């Protein structure tokens, strides 16, 4: 798939072009080109170390990139165009961009000294300066939507992993983001808690949220994703409809990976 780096077409939510990144001498991203349309659910699959989490973290500039461009809703992330080169933005400008990009982490990363509700309202009130009463009301609604209306005043350590991850999703949702990045959201969960989180994500997908999901849950990818992207050694080796990529993989790396996770 060819991608025009400049002048993004309408309906494109995230566009990466030629993204390369190294940690020291190890090149972890070797030129990623990828487009995610508005409302699309994209699952990134691949072995550990294939670069999928690193790429995800580049989308909200938690990681710097060495080459290439990443745009979210047409806006260049983390850098500014100068004549002939890109200059990294100041922290405040990057922070302003991150407001529109939700993120859900493998280890939840909830604020342990705040209750579930306080975790959810912290961003809208503290960062976006929205009206407190409105935000609290909205937060109650979101927590209810993720099935945690009983746990509004619980601290993260009083919640199970699945409940914590759902609070984390609620925290991302409360910012009313344009897209949400999920970084292996169920990998740290006990097996019986995984489905609660996946149900919430499925519900989100159906409501039209744009989602980029790094996951090992092939079943979820097959059922919910609009498109599956398979990465190996810092490159995209295969992408397409889940039924094609998962049901009938063409690349040997994809086949090798699927045979391991689908035992």
């Amino acid at each position, binding site marked *: 798939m060819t991608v025009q780096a400049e002048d993004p077409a309408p309906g494109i939510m995230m566009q990466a072009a030629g993204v390369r990144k190294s940690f020291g001498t190890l090149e972890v991203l070797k030129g990623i080109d990828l487009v995610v349309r508005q409302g699309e659910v994209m699952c990134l699959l691949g072995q550990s170390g294939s670069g999928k989490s690193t790429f995800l973290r580049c989308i909200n500039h938690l990681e710097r990139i060495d080459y290439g461009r990443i745009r979210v809703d047409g806006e260049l992330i983390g850098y500014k165009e100068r004549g002939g080169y890109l200059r990294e933005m100041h922290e405040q400008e990057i922070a302003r961009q991150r407001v529109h990009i939700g993120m859900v982490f493998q280890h939840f990363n909830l604020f342990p000294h705040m209750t579930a509700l306080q975790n959810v309202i912290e*961003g809208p009130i503290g960062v976006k300066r929205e009206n407190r009463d409105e935000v609290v009301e909205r937060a109650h609604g979101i927590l209810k939507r993720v099935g945690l209306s009983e746990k509004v005043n619980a601290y*993260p350590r009083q919640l199970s992993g699945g409940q914590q991850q759902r609070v984390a999703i609620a925290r991302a949702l409360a910012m009313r983001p344009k897209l949400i990045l999920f970084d292996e959201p169920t990998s740290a969960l006990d097996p019986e808690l995984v489905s609660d989180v996946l149900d919430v994500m499925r519900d989100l997908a159906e409501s039209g949220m744009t989602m980029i999901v790094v996951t090992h849950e092939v079943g979820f990818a097959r059922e919910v994703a609009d498109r599956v992207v398979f990465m190996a050694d810092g490159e995209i080796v295969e992408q397409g409809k889940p039924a094609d990529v998962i049901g009938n993989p063409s690349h040997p790396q994809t086949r090798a990976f699927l045979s391991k996770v689908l035992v």
Partner: protein
Amino acid sequence: MSLQKSAFHGSGSDHTADQPIKPARHPWRWVAIAFVALLAVMFVHTLMTNPRFEWPIVAKYFTSGTILLGVRRTLELTAIAMLSGVGLGVLLAVMRLSPNPVLSSASWLFVWFFRGSPLLVQLLLWYNLSALFPDISLGIPFIGPDFVKIDANVLITPYLAALLGLGLNEAAYSAEIIRAGIISIDHGQTEAAQSIGMSRGRLLRRVVLPQAMRVIIPPLGNDTINMLKMSALVSIIAVPELLFAAQTIYSRTFETIPLLLVAVIWYLIVVSVLSVIQYYIERHYARGSSRSLPLTPLQGLRKLLGFGPRGRPALPDEKRSAA
């Protein structure tokens, strides 16, 4: 079948499972208690019978104006030195963790000097600052005119010298304590805060520091108590704090021991109050750190006496021990 059954019951008795289970006996504990009790009685006995303690004189001066003024001055010194020290300490800690090598080295150098030289020497240096800089002026360095120019002997009073010495020393120590607190927080917290668009300042204020407080408060409480006692050092530069007040009285009346006792008792009282305050501050910052907050001493006492904390039904084992 029968073999399994007897192996399971051990003794073979059919009633074993119903017999009550009792805790182990600890006879040596009683010996230790008796020994400590004897020492305590001996101590109280000498306090009451040795006339050289001169308790009536202790009582006479305990609330005298000079002493109370000294207590006030000691509290003032401690509070101002701690507040300014910790404030500067936060700045130094953030500087030390900054990616900017100049800021980080400047912070390191500050800590190196003020932690590395004796507080007593620092106090004497500040007190004698006028010998080094007779005039202290504010203006454009090297070339420009001075806007303000003050005689150092007027500006650096003993009280200000004491505050500078105590405060800057505390800044060096608390900088390290706060730095330790900040780096103890998982990096995932920073990433989560960044992912909702938080600025650096807010991240520090709302996410990192409140959690770091759990690590920071115990050693900082230690420092506060230490500061209260170290403030006695400034008696050497004639700041009329508690020890100095006691000294001025006994240099006149020669009732040395009773007045030192007055000072010690006041120090102990203030330290006790500080410890209680520290306990409740720690409890405040323990929010969310465990599944339930530890009991306050009052609740603990009630539980020990078998009442059980208010508002919570007694646990099954409490009921059993009460029965």
